[in-house]
């Protein structure tokens, strides 16, 4: 293939060997999703790229450059996004409810008040800030290729953070106490509203990728439905685990 005098991205060919076409199309799809391009237009863009590649006989990376820059250069129409990011809001509400259960379930079972200290307040602040930053975080996370060390780091953090918080709480001064029942009720509402809202959104606002001239699959695959269900109801499931520990954890510990 000769050099295209109009193409400024002539370095694309150098990177071509590093990415196979399947990966390129996966990343291209993610980039178009991140740009909020409608599913039908994504299907059109994917089919156009495949059509051109079938004739050109080169790799997708060489032919179109990086998935991110190509998706941006296409400048396809986008779905207007709401001012408030629903994903971040729902995740934040569910997480607040979960933490609410973490601090109030055991005191309620034991008939005690919830002791509010600096670690507890810090945790709530971190969750709220995390929910606000969620859209930016998700965009970055979507572009990350999973690596084994990431799962190891996540597992270590998942164990170390609660343990560290627990140790900190043991030494922290109690600032004030609150009755456990209102926190339990508020937490239950937050967890349920978050899950039901997410479930309704999955059912009502799906925007499947439709190939040109094709119809969207009437039914998503079982594995996809199970995965979405697990994500949607994960806060409820974790809340049940917390309650099981609160109700039966102490007798088991003896």
């Amino acid at each position: 293939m000769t050099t295209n005098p109009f193409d400024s991205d002539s370095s694309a060919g150098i990177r071509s060997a590093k990415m196979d076409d399947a990966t390129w199309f996966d990343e291209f799809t993610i980039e178009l999703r991140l740009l909020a391009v409608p599913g039908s237009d994504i299907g059109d863009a994917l089919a156009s790229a495949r059509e051109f590649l079938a004739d050109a006989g080169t790799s997708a990376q060489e032919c179109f450059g990086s998935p991110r820059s190509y998706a941006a250069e296409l400048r396809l129409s986008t779905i207007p996004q709401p001012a408030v990011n629903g994903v971040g809001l729902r995740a934040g509400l569910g997480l607040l409810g979960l933490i609410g259960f973490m601090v109030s379930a055991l005191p309620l079972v034991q008939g005690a008040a919830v002791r509010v200290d600096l670690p507890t307040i810090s945790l709530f602040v971190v969750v709220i800030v995390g929910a606000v930053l969620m859209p930016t975080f998700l965009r970055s996370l979507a572009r990350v290729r999973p690596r084994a060390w990431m799962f190891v780091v996540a597992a270590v953090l998942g164990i170390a953070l609660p343990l560290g918080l627990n140790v900190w709480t043991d030494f922290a001064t109690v600032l004030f106490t609150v009755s456990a029942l209102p926190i339990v009720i508020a937490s239950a509402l937050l967890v349920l509203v978050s899950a039901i809202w997410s479930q309704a959104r999955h059912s009502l606002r799906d925007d499947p990728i439709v190939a040109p001239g094709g119809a969207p699959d009437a039914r998503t695959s079982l594995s996809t439905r199970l995965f979405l269900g697990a994500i949607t109801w994960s806060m409820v499931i974790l809340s049940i685990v917390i309650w099981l520990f609160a109700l039966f954890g102490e007798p088991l510990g003896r």
Partner: protein
Amino acid sequence: MRAALSLCVLRALAPGPTYGYAIASTLEAAGLGAIKGGTLYPLLTRFEAAGWIAGEWRPGAGGPGRKYFSLTDDGQRELADQVAHWQLFSITVHDHLQKGPVES
């Protein structure tokens, strides 16, 4: 140079409906070099959004379907306008190159 490519792509569509790789091949045969998909499709998408061209998917024989593009009436007018502008521009540049700067 991008403007010239834009004009050449519109011109390649003038004979009738055609598809992405055929447009790239036409331009390469005309001496404009190999046009990559990453250069061509953003232009076609922009033309489609402007209403200058219309896209239609046609089923392929055994392989993937092809998206055929054709000039709309607006596209024909745009091509005529751009050709006129380009000719005026090229004459101006040519004259300048021949005569050099005008002395005051």
